[in-house]
């Protein structure tokens, strides 16, 4: 299958700092692709290069088989992390302007914008200036600005940050709906539960490098069943006595325990039973959160 977004050996430097270092990944048609990584890992810079806002120093990026260009920009709907609209401009005029900059004709832009305003029950805001809108309202307008030109590819940089739960849910619905229509979606996020729920493939960034990538399910499988979930009643002091484990998540009556080299789940169960009443004992695949944290920590050590 041909790649919709193909990033090959891309590097980008700002002065002496290396923002993106020899990164390669590909996004297939109809996928939801997640870019993960801590702040400053190079996600936004990579996204800007895919959007042809920045040019890579070395390497090559192609969109739908062609090198990035003003033409490829028109096939992408981009929602930047830092949202922005002209505050003093009326909602409708603003959307018309942005859609026409994406190459739509006046007629097509008008039709699309009216469709989306209607869909988000926002038609009555047409004549309002953006500065008059509430935060939730302007988020919807921002989203319409991203999708109005009906692009084949969506790129969302931290799309859920700052969204209230209702808008967040709405965005999720729209993303899944667009995927059903064969659109390709790439988004970056910190929010692991959203990645687990939505993404097909992921690429994990750390310090400018792509440290882990592939199909989400196979990545999780490759880590094996190495995590113990424990629900208990009693003193949690015994957790400190465990050797060869890392406790990822712990509260008064719950622990998520990652087994390291040589640790046995049976041993943990034995110790736990001596000190507390066990309500649940389960051996599972690691959470993405855990994979994220351990991979980032590993690369930190190796650097």
């Amino acid at each position, binding site marked *: 299958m041909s790649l919709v977004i193909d990033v090959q050996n891309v590097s980008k430097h700002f002065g002496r700092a290396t923002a993106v270092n020899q990164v390669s990944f590909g996004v297939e048609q109809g996928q939801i692709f997640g870019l993960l990584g801590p702040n400053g890992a190079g996600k936004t810079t990579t996204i*800007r290069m895919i959007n042809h806002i920045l040019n890579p120093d070395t390497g090559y990026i192609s969109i739908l088989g062609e090198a990035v260009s003003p033409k490829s920009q028109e096939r992408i709907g981009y929602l*930047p992390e830092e*949202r*922005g609209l*002209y505050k003093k401009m009326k909602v409708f005029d603003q959307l018309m*302007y*942005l859609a026409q900059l*994406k190459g739509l004709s006046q007629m097509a832009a008008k039709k699309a914008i009216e469709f989306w305003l209607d869909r988000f029950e926002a038609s009555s805001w047409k004549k309002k200036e953006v500065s008059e809108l509430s935060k939730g309202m302007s988020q919807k307008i921002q989203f319409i600005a991203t999708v109005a030109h009906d692009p084949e590819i969506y790129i969302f940089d931290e799309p859920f940050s700052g969204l209230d739960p209702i808008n967040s849910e709405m965005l999720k619905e729209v993303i899944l709906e667009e995927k059903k229509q064969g659109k390709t979606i790439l988004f970056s996020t910190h929010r692991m539960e959203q990645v687990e729920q939505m993404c097909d493939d992921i690429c994990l960034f750390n310090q400018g490098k792509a440290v882990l990538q592939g199909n989400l399910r196979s990545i999780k499988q490759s880590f094996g069943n190495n995590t113990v979930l424990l629900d208990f009643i009693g003193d949690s002091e015994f957790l400190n006595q465990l050797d060869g484990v890392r406790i990822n998540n712990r509260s008064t009556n719950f622990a998520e325990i990652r087994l390291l080299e040589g640790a046995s789940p049976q041993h943990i169960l034995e110790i736990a039973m001596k000190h507390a009443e066990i309500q649940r004992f389960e051996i599972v695949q690691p959470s993405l959160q855990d994979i994220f944290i351990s991979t980032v920590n590993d690369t930190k050590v190796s650097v």
Partner: protein
Amino acid sequence: MINFLKIWLIIKREYKTRVQTKSFLLSTFLTPLLILGFMGFVIFMTVSDNEAPKQVIVIDETGRMLEPLTRLNATRYQPIKADQSIEQIRDLIMEDELDGYVFFDQPFLNEGTPATFVHNGSGGITFFESLRSDVRDVTRQIRLEDNDVSDAIIAIFEERPALENRRLNEAGVDEQSNAVVSSLGGIFIGIFIFIGLFGYGAILMRSVIEEKTSRIVEIITSSVKPIELMLGKLLGVCLVALTQYSLWIVTYAGVTILAAPVAQFFINQRMGGLQNSLSTLDTTGTVASVPSDIDLSFLEQFSIDPLFILYFFVFFVLGFLMYCSIFAAIGAAVDSEQDSQQFMAPVMLPIFLGYILNFRIAEAPDSTIAIVASLFPLTSPINMVTRMLVSNVPLWEVLLSILLLILSLIGMLLLAARIYRTGILMYGKKPTFRELYKWIRQA
């Protein structure tokens, strides 16, 4: 490479959002009103004979001054009444019933000692000058009579040879010229360009900063190239400035064309009123003739040559694009207006230089410094226009100046585009000059 359709969309937005603002409408329509007021004031000053009629009592011990003075101006020079003392006259002056008295004693005519003019301070220098001129004329007349001078010599003294000021224009036709008016015009036009460069430069810079801080710029640059955005903004704001100037020029032209007939109309009205009041007084029915020789030809000095307007626009547009591309780059490099100060200083320097030189150039338009300043591209947008208004600049100098301006405009645009492209996506610390240099060097 460059997508002109998108630039056009940007120009349209920049133009529309600005022309529709209240401040644009206010400044556009208030300024002509100010110009109108100014011109009306000038006309009023000329037409209204400068002064309210003054009354001066003549105390004449020589017995020879009063009669010729009243012949010169019967309303101004009044004889002292028989029952009036000097003290009474002084009281009247202090109460502002009279403007003053002038005292001629015998030694004034015999020995040439000064006469005395005592007044309440009203009227100022113009009034005093005209009084002195009257006294001199009368005294000279008396001396000529006393010395039995021949009529021929008297005629020589009465002669007032005129010097007409005519400037030869490009078409080879000499036209009436007034150096003072064109110097003033030169200063004015320089100030207009100066304000335009600065005012619109600041507007452009603010709007670049606003796009940057509101983060809309990232969405725009995911659709268009930074250079396209910058050009669109420059041209859009430039069009706004041109619209404003055009409206002003049209208003100005309208005013100057209408000024003479309107002024004439008011003069006629005034004269007509005077004639009516005279004819009602004059029981014999003969209408006294009133002179209507107020010269309005000076108004022609205010008219402007269409070719000059064309040059004005050429220099303004080129200067605007050159300076404002730098302002756009500065706006892109910083996050707030306060941060822009440091970079503004080196840009403001040549504009201020042009502005200051402008006063000198309006006075001496063909001096070496004027020629240099009107060719040097950083000052020529202001100084060449002034020079062209005040003097006849050789065509080759004008064309050379335009060529130099175009070349430096292209250079500035390229530099500015590089800073702009990097700057609009940079947030946080204000860059140093060295960093700007690095941005420029990055291919």
